[in-house]
């Protein structure tokens, strides 16, 4: 752990499909999981990340580099996060939330959770089930009962097509 000061340390991360990525240690330690591994003394070796695939890891590293380049200014960081997530589709967001959770990156985690919720807003129950891969485990009677409970308006829900 006796990190030499002066030259920035680079870490090598390995995705679960065996892609290798180089990233500055200062950016990578945004992930508490990686920080723990670095503190465990592995700054020189390859860090295997068993639960993140190469495509998602590339995306997360883009985020790590982008956000760590911004000085302590919450407003600017927030707008970077918004911009970073703006062009991601639902599947990518789903992968990102898993990766952010595994890597223990709370700032990315919160932003992705909020973004997923934003996409879900005003979508029909069917859309949500399909996108989340959730099986409807209600009996028709139960479903009707739950609907009855919250019956006043069902206005403002978008029609049942993807996006």
């Amino acid at each position: 752990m006796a990190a030499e000061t002066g030259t920035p340390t680079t870490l090598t991360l390995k995705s679960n499909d065996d892609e290798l990525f180089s990233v500055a240690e200062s950016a990578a330690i945004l992930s508490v999981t990686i920080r723990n591994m670095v503190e465990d003394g592995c700054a020189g070796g390859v860090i295997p990340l068993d639960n993140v695939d190469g495509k998602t890891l590339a995306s997360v590293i883009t985020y790590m580099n982008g956000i760590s380049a911004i000085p302590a200014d919450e407003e600017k960081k927030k707008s970077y996060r918004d911009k970073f997530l703006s062009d991601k589709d639902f599947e990518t967001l789903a992968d990102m939330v898993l990766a952010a959770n595994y890597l223990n990156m709370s700032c990315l985690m919160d932003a992705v959770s909020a973004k997923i919720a934003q996409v879900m807003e005003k979508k029909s129950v069917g859309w949500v089930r399909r996108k989340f891969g959730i099986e409807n485990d209600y009996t028709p009677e139960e479903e009707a009962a739950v609907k009855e409970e919250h019956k006043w308006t069902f206005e403002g829900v978008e029609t049942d097509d993807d996006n």
Partner: protein
Amino acid sequence: MEVWEMESGTGEWTNTCNVNFEARKREIKQFADVDAGMTFLLRPAGWLKYREVVVFRVWCTKNCFAYNIVTHEIDFFEMDTNSSSHKFEPYTKSLVWMNISQSPPPARHRSRDGSLIAATVDPHLNTGSTPMAKTEGNSSGRNRPYYFRGCKGKKSSTNIDSLSDELVFDILLNLPAEDICENAVLVCRRWSHMIRTHDFVNEHILHHSIPGLLILDYNREKKKNPSIFVAMRQGRIEISEFNYKMRGNILACCNGLILEFYISKHALVITNPATKQHFDVPRFGHPNCSSMAYSAVSMKYKVVLTYHHGGDVSTLRCVIATVGVDKSWRDVCLQHLSFEAKNYLYMNPITTGGFLHWTRRHTHTSVVTLNVETETITQYPVPQGQDYDRRYKYYLSTGKSLSLFISNGSFSMEVWEMKSDSGEWSEMCTIDLESRKNEFDKLRCGKSPTLFYLAPASWLKYPEVVVLRVSHPSCVCIAYNITTDEIDFLNLGSNCNNYEFELHTKTLAWLN
């Protein structure tokens, strides 16, 4: 390695024992299956039984082992993923809990000789069982740790359903209350159970704690203008129609609940328009004004009524009841209030969190504040200054505290804030739009003979954005950002002076 221990009270260190498995290095290396190119490092992860059994992990592999310092036995076990991505915490299964909330969270009691829980940071594994290692009682001479393998991590990239409850919880917290009630509860049983817990409801209230603005037409009987909801989201102002049709007069808004007076039934009803729940309030004669506040400590809502007979101060009463608990009303002691202060109680109070405030705009010297937690009423002085008694004053709720606007001129005002528990006032800022008054010219009504000036209507986002209206009849009100000095014009579709403004949050708050 050497093992040292610190006495927490004195900070004194002692070397308690040494761990040396140099002799068994080959055995460990063989088990650990370390790639030739990787460093071979052992890291202590946690005590399984203090001074006897310690768990080590082999760096950057799935492998761990428990080493008994006394007997030198080694038990190997394997995690499902890299052991460095797990957190090892001493944990005892106990019955301890904090009985503050109605639904106690699973309590954690840590102790040195407890078990060791490997809390994985992998969401797939989290849904199943967390591996828990435990030493058996010392009866069986041998301390063999038990370990359970968690279910193998599934590799499905887009199936969010495999997310742990915590992750789904975090995502759903971000959804507006209406989406939760109309869609999310219908998705599946798991989601529905999660949403219907006190934990979720309370977290959701905290997550959406910045109130929006409910704008209601005074003449609701004629049902001409729909109610409007204005909220700040992502720095932008969003205006939408408020779907709920009021049955009567709105008396107070608190945490998403609305206290209404049903004229036809002559009864007080509490409604949550987002969850579409109604709740009846015990009856009490003919109150002159009614309000509601939330006592955060007891997590209860309380309704407060004031009552007098024909304006006779000697008949004045202030009564309080806890919603869902009390069947009858309790009196709040008013004896210590001055004659003038008692007169304030004829007016409708302003709700700020767990407090109600009665004021009078003019001829005033004090504010009367009721703490709904302690059910005590206090009279606090208001800021005094040169010719303050001749200037226009407006009291507005910030949601959490009481604010006072004192006009300095037609387009400028001082803003003060009162601490509800101490009655202490501090000056927050001055809004001065004198130099920008030309921008408001379009709201001026040529025919109106009255003076043209700005008056505050409500906070939209405290302490940044305040909504102002003009004294002339106009459909447009002004959202002014105090921090950025930006001005937005909001068209309400009808004369702003016919509207009342209430702070309102869309929440899942419930009462049973």
